């Protein structure tokens, strides 16, 4: 399955992460030809539940796992295909990620990379999916405690929602792009439960400034902001591995303190732009239109958005 879909010698190398398939992302992220898939599509380890609902299955259940090299470093990787059932966690999908993380305890790679693209738990196999989310979070803490950083890359069309957002919160470092979104309840879920006055899911600008990459980066919910290219995600992943924090009591206490301070400082804000204003951004309304370079310059000026906590 090692076909090189993106040729680094061509413009394709700058291809959009958002638009790329999970396999194309892996192919462009890792060193050329280094990806080795585990439980590949030829093994046909498909969902046992979807046929009960008369729904089609995917050969890899929307989760691609394996090993590869990133600038020569051995890494384990997992990529979700967001176009298959919204990248949702089913039984096989989740078990493949849990298995990969448990393998990391034995193999001790330089990092585990998780390419998120998920709406959360697959409703047709919800109990198995919820269990998988819990098992993944537990496995990530064990891997981090063993000294292996777990890096989340978020820039797909499904974002990282539901249980995927919870898992992202347990990673050592998160890289996010403009198109990537991180949250637990999605826009439609909030609107359904609390009404359009609370959150209008059709207001795309509201969705992006509340859950999008720039907001998450500004409030320390993500550690790096990347352009929407495979090349940018590769570089950001390399940087993130080098800067991964320790996973000990001091880190967790610092994270708890940071979150308490965030709530105290911004808890009464009615919109993300209010938070950005309190952070010291001079012109909050201009933030969504900033280029990556302009946004990085803004971040550097604020000086408070990078934490060793998490």
């Amino acid at each position, binding site marked *: *399955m090692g*076909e090189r879909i993106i040729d680094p010698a061509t413009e394709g190398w700058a291809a959009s992460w958002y638009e790329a*398939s999970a*396999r194309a992302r892996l192919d462009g992220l890792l060193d050329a030809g280094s990806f080795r898939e585990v439980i*590949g*599509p*030829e093994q*046909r380890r498909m969902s046992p539940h979807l*046929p009960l609902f*008369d*729904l*089609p*299955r*995917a*050969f890899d259940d929307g989760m691609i796992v394996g090993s590869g090299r990133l600038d020569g470093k051995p890494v384990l990787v997992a990529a979700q*295909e967001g*176009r*298959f*059932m919204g990248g949702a966690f089913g039984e096989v999908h989740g078990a493949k990620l849990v298995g990969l993380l448990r393998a990391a305890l034995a193999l001790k790679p330089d990092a585990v990379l998780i390419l998120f693209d998920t709406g959360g738990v697959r409703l047709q196999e919800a109990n198995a999916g919820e269990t998988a989310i819990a098992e993944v979070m537990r496995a990530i803490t064990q891997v981090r405690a063993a000294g292996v950083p777990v890096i989340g890359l978020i820039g797909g069309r499904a974002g990282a929602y539901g249980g995927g957002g919870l898992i992202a919160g347990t990673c050592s470092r998160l890289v996010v792009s403009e198109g990537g979104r991180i949250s637990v309840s999605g826009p439609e879920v909030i609107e359904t439960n609390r009404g359009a006055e609370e959150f209008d899911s059709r207001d795309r600008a509201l969705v992006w400034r509340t859950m999008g990459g720039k907001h998450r980066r500004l409030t320390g919910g993500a550690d790096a902001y990347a352009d929407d290219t495979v090349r940018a995600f590769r570089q950001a992943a390399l940087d993130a591995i080098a800067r991964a924090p320790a996973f000990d009591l001091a880190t967790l206490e610092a994270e708890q303190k940071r979150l308490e301070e965030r709530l105290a400082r911004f808890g009464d804000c009615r919109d993300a732009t209010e938070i950005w204003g309190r952070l010291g951004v001079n012109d909050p309304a201009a933030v969504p239109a900033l280029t990556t370079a302009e946004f990085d310059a803004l971040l550097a000026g604020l000086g408070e958005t990078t934490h060793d906590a998490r």
Partner: protein
Amino acid sequence: MESLTFRHTTQKALPGAKAQAITGVVASGNLEVLLERALPASECTVEIETPIRGYGEVWAAVVADFVARAQPGGLRITVNDGGARPDTVSLRLLQGARLMEV
């Protein structure tokens, strides 16, 4: 779900030595195609699982056209369909055969 299986004899083996390839995705109006070099050089099978029932004759025509054009001898092809139109199916099958040749 409806399962369909088509067996064809081909005049020659598909060029190349690649053991397997996959293309496409199971999404609305799309499909994924898994190709494996697993049969004698003069045979090709195409197995399809589709949630849209009753289009066996259309599948048969699209597959027969693909086999005639690509001569995919030696391939076991398995399709997970997400309700793709015949032209999309045809393009994906040809794309898959091309991936096996390079």
